[in-house]
């Protein structure tokens, strides 16, 4: 063990928290190294002095003063809790009044004479069929020409109308 290692371990050495082997190594180093032995003695002597410094006691009126302050503290806490209690009671009363008001209003509106329902008259209408400018063959042309499919999808919605329309036209022609 060198002096540096001794200094590193000295805290644990003084506090007696070193493991057995380490403790023996430290003791052996002290026996061999005068400088470290002096350092160890100096620290231990200083600590002994400090640990034996006389204790001071609280003054005579310490307990009375503390008791007085604790009573003040108790009173404060009591006042505080009473204030909280009053606030809580007030809030509860207010909430109850609001709730009662709401319930009575609801009940009153439900018990009043039922009014006739007036609804807007329903008028049946036939939706206008959109007239499609493009004829059937035009759709076929666009599809075969590689145009995008969406116009075809759009026209597909009109298919039943268009069929009905062309049927009507055919009927007219045959007449």
């Amino acid at each position, binding site marked *: 063990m060198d002096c540096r290692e001794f200094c590193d371990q*000295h*805290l644990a050495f*003084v506090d007696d928290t070193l493991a057995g082997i380490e403790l023996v190594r430290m003791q052996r180093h002290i026996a061999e190294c005068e400088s470290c032995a002096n350092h160890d003695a*100096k*620290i231990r*002597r*200083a*600590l002994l*002095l*400090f*640990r034996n*410094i*006389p*204790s*001071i*006691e*609280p*003054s005579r009126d*310490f*307990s009375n*003063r*503390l008791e007085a*302050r*604790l009573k003040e*503290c108790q009173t404060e*806490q009591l006042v505080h809790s009473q204030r909280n209690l009053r606030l809580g009671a007030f809030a509860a009363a207010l909430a109850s009044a609001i709730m009662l008001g709401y319930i009575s209003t609801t009940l009153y509106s439900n018990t009043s004479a039922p009014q006739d329902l007036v609804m807007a008259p329903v008028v049946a209408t036939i939706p206008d069929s959109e007239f499609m400018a493009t004829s059937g063959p035009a759709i076929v042309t666009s599809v075969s020409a590689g145009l995008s499919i969406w116009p075809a999808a759009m026209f597909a919605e009109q298919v039943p109308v268009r069929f009905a329309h062309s049927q009507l036209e055919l009927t007219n022609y045959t007449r």
Partner: protein
Amino acid sequence: MADIVRKHAVSVEGQTVRERLQAMDDSAVVTAFLGGEERAFSELVTRYQTRLLNFIYRTIGDREKAEDLVQEVFIRVYRHLHRFDRSKKFSTWVYTIASNLAKNELRNRSRNPLVLFQTVQKNFQDEDRPLQFEDTTSRPDDMYRKRHLREIVEESVAKLPEHHRNVFILRELEGKSYEEIAEITECNLGTVKSRLNRARNSFAEIIAPYVD
């Protein structure tokens, strides 16, 4: 006659409660207080007042202020005991409060450079100091030497940097473990060990010329 008997019964009951509280550990006393036993708080005060007074006094160096701060510690404990995490040690919690108050006091003092640690200690007259610690059977020159030695020790401690002094007192005077000191001072274990090592070396260096 009935009154006397009743009074005696109450006093016996009171005595029993006090004795029971004295036999309990801190955690049980705290539980008793929270359960409505007001006398439990007096038991806590009895257990900690002297220890806290010494700890704060050695940290700030002003006896009167130290007493005020100890009272403040107990007021805070009284107010906030219901919030104390009972899975932890009560003593660590109390010392944390005391340490923080002492730190605040030193911080406030550093803002007012007219009041210094050494000044306060010097103003603390010998007549005000408790004499009961000195052995009254000693010769006057022995008593003087002991008192002189105590002054030297106190002054040497006062010369340590605040964060070193705090750790040093907690370890050497209060006998706290490294872990407890780490919790009280809100430092990690390595910092506590390093500060303690430096504080010991510095203190030994400062006091060496007086004791050699």
